[in-house]
């Protein structure tokens, strides 16, 4: 049991570290789904564990922390330079911790629904919905910083 949890956390730690924009977020999301749907993968087994299994609380907490960190990092996209030259993050009103809870809930709940229906779509749909608010606020990979320091998407550059 501990092995599954440790393996998932190790992979998540590495993959979430790569998430920096909407494309890499989509990659992470696709990988999570693939892992969960792979029979007997550490992800599938970890999620199967009873909710009151020992160490499960720590596992979910640790995963939540990893996702929170990734969300906070990628949300820090609009570096607005203040009058004193300091940079601040433009988070667009999204709370990284709460977003992480929604994403984890979608993973767990979507997994249950897919398990019951023997159908991958509920898990996919659930994650799409959970990630949608975040995607709206992220830059696309083609976004570029203008000389003034504001983020401008490639399309707005004429």
């Amino acid at each position, binding site marked *: 049991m501990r092995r599954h949890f440790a393996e998932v956390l190790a992979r998540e730690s590495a993959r979430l570290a790569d998430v920096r924009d909407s494309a890499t977020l989509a990659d992470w999301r696709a990988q999570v789904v693939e892992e969960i749907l792979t029979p007997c993968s550490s992800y599938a087994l970890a999620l199967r564990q009873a*909710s009151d299994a020992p160490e*499960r609380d720590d596992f979910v907490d640790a995963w939540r922390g990893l996702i929170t960190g990734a969300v906070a990092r990628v949300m820090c996209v609009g570096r607005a330079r203040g009058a004193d030259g300091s940079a601040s993050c433009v988070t667009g009103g999204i709370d990284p911790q709460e977003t992480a*809870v929604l994403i984890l*809930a979608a993973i767990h709940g979507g997994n249950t629904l897919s*398990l*019951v229906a023997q159908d991958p779509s509920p898990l996919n749909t659930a994650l*799409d919905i*959970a990630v949608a608010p975040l995607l709206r606020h992220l830059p696309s990979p083609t976004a570029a910083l203008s000389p003034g320091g504001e983020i401008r998407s490639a399309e707005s550059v004429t």
Partner: protein
Amino acid sequence: MTTADSQSDRRLTARGAKTRTKIVAAAADLMYVQGVTVTTLDDVITAAIGVSSKSQLYHFFDSKEALVRAVVDLVGERVIERERAALGRVSTFRGLRRWRDTLVQNNALQHGAYGCALGSLASEVSDNDAIARQALARLFNEWQDLLAGVLRRIQDAGALPADAPIDQLAIGLMAALQGGYLLAQTARDVTRMATALDMALTHIESLSVS
């Protein structure tokens, strides 16, 4: 009756039906609190008033599997009835938020300890019993349809755009609910469930035509 069980088709006397119901209700309560796997038939016999021997239980159910299927039916019936009453006439976001409040409050009574009655069954039996799994799948679909019904009424009232993906949103909401229950159970803290539902509802609401 949604599950196949030859012994339940046998005509029961009124007293027999009562005893059967007692057995199933006792089993449902035990399995809710301690899980399906851990619950033995002896546990059920001890808990069911008026039932004192395994042979009595076997009169109605020839295996634990058969009993579990009956539990799925009973729990499913209770949950759908509850949800139909709660959601049947909801047609606004405010109504959905109230629905969420009730679920969270009820779960808070046990600090989230037991999770969703239907969801817990789904986790435990899906791998082991295809018939029970199929019954659970139908029940979840029914529940999802109730949610989709609410979203369609909200859409009809103009609070959601005509092209809003209603069925997908219903799945997303259900997943947030089930996942919320699981997270609350793991952390023994209903806040996780409240957050997951709030976030999902906020997202759906954000799609509304401003």
